[in-house]
């Protein structure tokens, strides 16, 4: 894979998706911190009202406008309801009518329930952000890292063109969707990265998502981030020595060493299981797979985020 094909951070949009609990938020934050350290102007956009970046960066409030969260990173959260109202204000010619519609709680609910409207409003916002310019010229944001909520959400988002083809006639919405779909499909502009952990379910979901999207032309893939890959200092060749050690420890009554051996065996087995899942991922997904280590369960500071981000981005080169 050439550098040109894989340098994900050079794209306008980096879409990130993965099953809940695989540490996607951390990888998103790490990539953003790393991009900032390279002098880029990363913007993290979270879809839905999750606002996970709040706790990663330790800031109070992240809303519909890009906010400086430190370490050179901006973040915002696109809530569907807010995006829809924003879209209405922009597209309805009469401001008076627009306001009355916007202030109408009932309409708000309708748009929340209507198919595709929330997604369309969301992509409208993403397009605006993409087009924003600095006073000195040049794009205001790059890359825009979009944290897609869950794998199902990613599909809906990318299949929007097909969804609306069935239900929507010509109009500004349809045009917006068409243009955005082209942008998402362009490998120069957009890459979809997948985050998984080397465990059965996340790997299966990643393989399935890859299978569903591959060849459909709706999006180009970047990398797969295999997050939380466990490391052990012992290889399988140590197993016979562990057997001996366990025997000896039992003979002399060192229960603590027996426990050490038992734990070491479990850790080695888990390492082997993780490697087997990685092998399955490699076999079924024809993308660069970037391994990220299992880190201690504690909040990460800026330096460790940057380090993880460099690992993630470096793995792509």
């Amino acid at each position, binding site marked *: 894979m050439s550098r040109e094909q894989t340098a994900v951070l050079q794209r306008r949009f980096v879409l990130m998706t993965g099953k*809940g*609990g695989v*540490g996607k938020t951390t990888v998103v934050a790490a990539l953003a911190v790393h991009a900032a350290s390279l002098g880029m102007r990363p913007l993290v956009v979270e879809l*839905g*009202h*999750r606002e*996970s970046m709040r*706790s*990663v960066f330790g800031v109070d409030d992240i809303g519909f406008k890009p906010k400086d969260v430190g370490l050179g990173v901006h973040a915002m959260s696109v809530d569907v309801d807010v995006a829809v109202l924003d879209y*209405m204000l922009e*597209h*309805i010619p*009469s401001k008076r*009518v*627009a306001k*009355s519609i916007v202030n109408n709680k*009932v309409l708000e*609910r*309708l748009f929340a*329930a*209507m*198919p*595709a*409207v929330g997604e369309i409003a969301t992509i409208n916002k993403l397009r605006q952000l993409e087009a924003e310019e600095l006073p000195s010229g040049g794009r205001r944001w790059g890359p825009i890292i979009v944290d897609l909520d*869950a794998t*199902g*959400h990613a599909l809906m988002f990318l299949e929007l063109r097909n*969804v609306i083809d*069935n*239900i*929507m*006639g*010509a109009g*500004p*919405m*349809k045009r917006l969707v068409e243009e955005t779909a082209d942008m998402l499909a362009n490998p120069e502009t957009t890459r979809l990265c997948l985050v998984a952990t080397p*465990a*059965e*379910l996340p790997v299966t979901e990643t393989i399935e998502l890859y299978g569903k999207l591959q060849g459909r032309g709706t999006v180009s893939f970047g990398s797969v981030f295999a997050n939380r890959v466990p490391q052990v*200092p*012992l290889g399988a060749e140590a197993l016979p*020595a*562990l057997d*001996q*050690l366990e*025997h000896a*420890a039992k*003979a*002399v009554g*060192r229960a603590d*060493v*027996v*426990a*050490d*051996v038992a*734990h*070491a065996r479990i850790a080695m087995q888990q390492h082997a299981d993780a490697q087997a899942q990685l092998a399955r991922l490699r076999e079924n997904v024809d993308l660069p797979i970037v391994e990220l280590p299992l880190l*201690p*369960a*504690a909040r990460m500071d800026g330096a460790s985020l940057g380090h993880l981000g460099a690992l993630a981005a470096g793995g792509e080169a």
Partner: protein
Amino acid sequence: MSASLDKLVREQKLIVCVGPGGVGKTTVSAAVGLAGARAGRKTVVLTIDPARRLADALGLPGLDDEIRAVPVETLPAADDGSPTAPLHAAMVDTAASYASLIRRIAPDEATHRRILDNRVFQAVSKSLARSHAYVAMERLYDAMQNHDYDLVVLDTPPARNALDILDAPMSLANFLDSRFVEWFLPGEGPKGIRDRIIASGGAVAKRMLGLITGKKLLDEIVSFLEAFASLREGFAARATTVDASLREPSTSFVLVSSANPSSADDAAWLRHDLQRRKVPVSGVIYNQSFVSLDPAAPMQCVTTLRDDDLDARLGQLEPHLQGVDDPKALLRDIRAMRAEAAAENGRFTAIVDGLAAELEPSCAQIRAPRFREEIRDLPGLLRLVDVLTGRAR
């Protein structure tokens, strides 16, 4: 503080499991259900997660929208010899559940067909993340009204925000009952000034929407609303019942979290949200929140380990070892691995303590270990049941 869900599964009629994604919530829900059945109560588990592994864990060939009997008779009898009550499970399928809901409440076959054929309905029922919460509530209604279960366990979609689950029953009913629908649908009977104002506002709104969405979608929306309007009463009645049942004293909310920082953050949000809405959190399960490090006491969370007598260990053990290359390095490495695992247990404990703050004293809190093997069958699930009910050693 109780360290067991035993009381809940013996006494409650509905247990709702909420929590962020990726913490094993669905497996915990299944275990809560099995705990209920083990306590002799006829139980159903409704899940939303299409995980095949869960079907395996329940000993079912597949798990779909249909409620199936879990083969609990294959399990050994409970400690006190009492038989396990029937356990059922179903995986809620959004589109299928919507369809059967419409079938149940449509006044006639023509309305039923009209709604099912409407493309807006098709898109809504298939694609909307939010509708999962609603449909979960629908299935709940059905399970509670039409079957004689002693206990219903509801697994919910991963949500950072408990709002979705609690608001789902009323929000669709409110929507259908709203002024908005009047905007779009011709009213009945003679029109007063108010109606005319609404009608003219509706005309403007319709025109504006048409401009944005295109006429085709607008027409579909209007016919969707026309068809749906006839379901108003049915919706309202069901929503009121479900909403009330969620607030019954016989209903408990159980929060499931893991001990990784971001899941714990999400779980803390949920806890806060539930408390803000005066919904008591009856139990918190910290799933996979420690690694068993002492074979003599596997349920104990060891957080520190002595690592200072390497030479003594070597002196004692070396005479018994033959052909081990570097026994000192091996002894050091394996102790370091276990000591690091203990330190990680300590970090998990700090996260659990953070989450435990602000819980009511009556709230049951359970720390479940990370099992060596993933739960793949009913006996595996039973081990988690033992942890949840305080029976594990």
